[in-house]
């Protein structure tokens, strides 16, 4: 056991911190979940990429630095501590990329990863459909084989696609074997959104931003090069990385530590020190934030030694999503009746936090996973 970073890791931290201090815009950008904000954020991604800070843990050849998971943790800590902008590229670099590293051909890696890292191509997630939300295996969007053209013709609809109206590409699951049931017969496809036959309609989220989109497919063609993994094995591609990576890379501790730090600052400024009721709750939120950080250090230790994360990732997802709600709820309580003013980071963050227990698999489903796959309780 050794709970200090190495000298070289600390040097990396200093470099990141110095760069962010110099480069993070002092004025908040408009939300990356609006069209104008998205473009501003892509500019920011380009600057990160130019500093080789967009995807530190990737190989150098694709725009990264071959940084260790520990350095990635450090990067994230510094990034959120600096109040740096939202990562509008996250669904590509954090969710799709691990699948491309694991299942993509060398050509696919070469084709997709550098442009993803630079923000030239931006990816949205095409899992959910109107009738396939928590029940992802109910996907009904189809891809029909076009042997002559060497590819697939897509039809159907995806929805709740975050930033779908602004991204250039979508990754998603499509039913390629119409006779197969549930999670069989699905294929993981990469789809340029300017493909003829693809229509995107943005729509508003709870907070008013046009952060969602519906994506319609009408005989849209993608070539075989755009199949990730094996045909009819898409479920495995989607799940293999979801299990090991989701818990870790989707929500690094740095994000919540930074929020907790802001909450503590808010408490010091506006909290009533005699109100031990609220003080106790703020303290508990800080303890939970530390628990999350330390639990992650354990996961990273395991992964660094070649281990796997497994279904325990579901516990992580439940914990961070509910922690995030609590952190913001406490801020609202400290702010009291002033909390309803829209133009505060807290009001926006509170609304965003509420999506956490829903997206990436509702917490009800995650709790089933914990019960069945971590504890071993019977499915039926």
């Amino acid at each position, binding site marked *: 056991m050794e709970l200090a970073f190495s000298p070289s890791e600390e040097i990396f931290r200093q470099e990141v911190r110095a760069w962010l201090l110099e480069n993070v815009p002092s004025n908040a950008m408009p939300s990356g979940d609006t069209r104008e904000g998205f473009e501003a954020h892509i500019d920011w991604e380009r600057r990160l990429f130019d500093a080789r800070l967009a995807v530190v843990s990737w190989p150098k050849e694709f725009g990264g630095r071959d940084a260790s998971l520990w350095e990635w943790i450090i990067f994230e800590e510094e990034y959120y501590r600096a109040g740096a902008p939202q990562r509008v590229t996250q669904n590509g670099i954090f969710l799709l990329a691990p699948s491309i590293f694991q299942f993509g051909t060398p050509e696919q890696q070469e084709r997709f990863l550098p442009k993803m890292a630079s923000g030239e191509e931006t990816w949205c997630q095409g899992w959910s459909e109107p009738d396939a939300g928590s029940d992802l295996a109910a996907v009904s969007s189809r891809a029909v084989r076009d042997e002559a053209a060497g590819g697939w013709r897509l039809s159907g609809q995806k929805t709740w696609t975050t930033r779908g109206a602004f991204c250039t590409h979508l990754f998603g699951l499509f039913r390629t074997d119409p006779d197969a049931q549930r999670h069989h017969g699905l294929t993981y496809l990469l789809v340029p959104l300017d493909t003829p036959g693809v229509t995107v309609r943005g729509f508003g989220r709870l907070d008013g931003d046009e952060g969602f989109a519906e994506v319609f497919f009408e005989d849209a063609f993608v070539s075989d090069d755009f199949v990730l993994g094996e045909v009819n094995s898409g479920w495995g591609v989607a799940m293999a990385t979801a299990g090991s990576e989701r818990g870790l890379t989707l929500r690094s501790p740095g994000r919540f530590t930074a929020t907790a730090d802001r909450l503590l600052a808010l408490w010091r400024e506006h909290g009533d020190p005699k109100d031990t009721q609220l003080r106790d709750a703020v303290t508990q939120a800080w303890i939970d934030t530390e628990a999350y950080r330390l639990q992650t250090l354990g996961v990273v230790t395991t992964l660094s030694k070649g281990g796997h994360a497994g279904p325990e990732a579901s516990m992580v997802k439940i914990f961070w999503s509910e922690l995030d709600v609590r952190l913001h709820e406490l801020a609202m309580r400290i702010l009291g*009746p002033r909390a309803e*003013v829209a133009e505060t980071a807290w009001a926006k963050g509170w609304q965003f936090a509420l999506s956490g227990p829903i997206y990436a698999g509702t917490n009800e489903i995650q709790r089933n996973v914990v019960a069945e796959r971590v504890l071993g309780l019977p499915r039926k």
Partner: protein
Amino acid sequence: MDFAFSEDQLSFRDAVRDLLTRECTASVVRDAWSNADGRSGQVWDLLAEMGVLGILAPEVDGGLGMTMIDLVLLIEECGRVALPEPIIEHAVVCAPIIGGVVSGSRTVTSFIGGSPFALYADSCEVALVERDRRLFTVERAALRLTPETAVDGSRRLSTLEWSDSDATEVGGPLEAVAAFDRGALGAAALLLGLSHRMLEMSVEYASERRQFGAPIGSFQAIKHHLANARIALEFARPLVTRAAYSLSVGDPDASTHVSMAKAQASDAAMLTSEHALQCHGAIGYSYEYDLHMWMKRVWALSSSWGDAGLHRARVAKAVL
């Protein structure tokens, strides 16, 4: 002992419910998010016509001279439809102490009880304000408004400034506390109505929406979320009713009863809003679906007129 509303009170409630269900539809609420004054247009006048705005106003002033127990169910109905109006400020807080409110044409808002904002001050004719624990009225023309944008787009907020010379005193510390108590109880009643409607929306959605081959409302986790919301409301309503009664009969513990009601209603409404969203999933998180307008009203009202912590502290002072 008779812990039930009278037939008259219930039929008035039913009539108001009919009116509001018909006139204050979700699209009226949605319009208020983007229209000029954030309000409902004609619904306000219809409520005035029915006499709702003047329930607490003295008869000499054209009101009904009735009490909070006659009004509380109607306020709950306003919550059920998320009525975008200064209903608490006008009909609950100001009606008993400011003349001319019965017709609704001279709308009154309030800026009392330590609230940082007044609601709809830009479209009101007069404001009840508090300074040094005394109540005053100030005409719209004499108010300086600084607007703020609220999370709930229909809630038009501003801070108010005024000169003492433009203020007419209408009450002292006792009246100020009584006005705050009425406001808090009104907010509790609105929260009940908002919550019951959110729960209805959730039951409807969970009964229709299918995942894993069954309506999601057949899954025990969803059932228990919504059962918990229902239970929280079941044990908030009697406190709200009792507080309304205590205000009506001038019970010496009325302030404590109001605080119990507001603390409980705030917590029950926040719980309901959380479970309602969770049971809806992504659709509840979209702007096009109506749920968020109810939720945002709940967030605002649960911390307005004293949040649960403030009211529990008031109760603690009285009973511990």
